[in-house]
């Protein structure tokens, strides 16, 4: 009772089409995450699109666990590191503002450019990574039945 079903055979059409389409989906997801403070979108929507591309990668190329690059250990390390980075960045501005310390603050920049808004861009990237890995691991667990 290791797997609930059998893995499908390797198919030529799916492999060739997947090699062309998956980079486009990932570039669109990265665009939505990076322009989160300039246009509608942000971390959650971009993270879901990135998770959908990872699910597609697992469905097409994952017939052997050695070949797939999204193994369980590596993905969980990325997620824990991303959550800790969010906590560290938010905790820095939270504590220095709450105790009224006068330490170095992130410069705001001009509104309308890509590198503006202080901590908003790193926080968007962290939230995007967390959401995409959550969606991918939910699919991987329900697809294989166990870890």
């Amino acid at each position, binding site marked *: 009772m290791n797997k609930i079903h059998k893995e499908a055979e390797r198919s030529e059409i799916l492999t060739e089409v997947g090699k062309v389409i998956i980079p486009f989906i990932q570039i669109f997801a990265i665009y939505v995450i990076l322009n989160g403070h300039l*246009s*509608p979108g942000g971390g*959650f929507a971009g993270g879901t699109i990135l998770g959908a591309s990872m699910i597609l990668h697992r469905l097409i190329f994952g017939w052997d666990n050695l070949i797939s690059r999204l193994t369980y250990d590596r993905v969980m390390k990325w997620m824990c590191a991303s959550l800790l980075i969010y906590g560290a960045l938010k905790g820095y501005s939270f504590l220095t503002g709450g105790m009224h310390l006068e330490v170095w603050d992130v410069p705001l920049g001009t509104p309308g450019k890509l590198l503006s808004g202080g901590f908003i861009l790193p926080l968007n990237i962290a939230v995007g990574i967390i*959401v995409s890995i959550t969606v991918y691991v*939910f699919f991987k667990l*329900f697809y294989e039945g166990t870890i």
Partner: protein
Amino acid sequence: MEHLLANYYETGAIILFGVGFVTLLAHGNLIKKIIGMNIMDTAVFLFFIAKGYIAGNEAPIIRSVKSASGYVNPVPTALMLTGIVVAVSITAFALALTIRVYEKYGTVDLNEIIKMGGE
């Protein structure tokens, strides 16, 4: 009655809530009950976000300098983003529990589980 038709978003949200509630109660299959709970969550989100609309204004992305009364209220949208994530987590957890119930009893129907019950 005209007031109900003027607030069509809130009326539609409550009717959708009722549809989800009937789906939760009337079927015996566990998966359909989980789908009904998800529909009820979506209805609550629609009701809450529709409270922030102001007629004739535009989306809150500030490109040119305008007064603060030309934009839609952004606070309900920001509050419901967290709610959507919680709804997804609850659905995933309920589906994981259904897999465990299926492995133990062999069926997903609630009436047969109650008849077999007590194991």
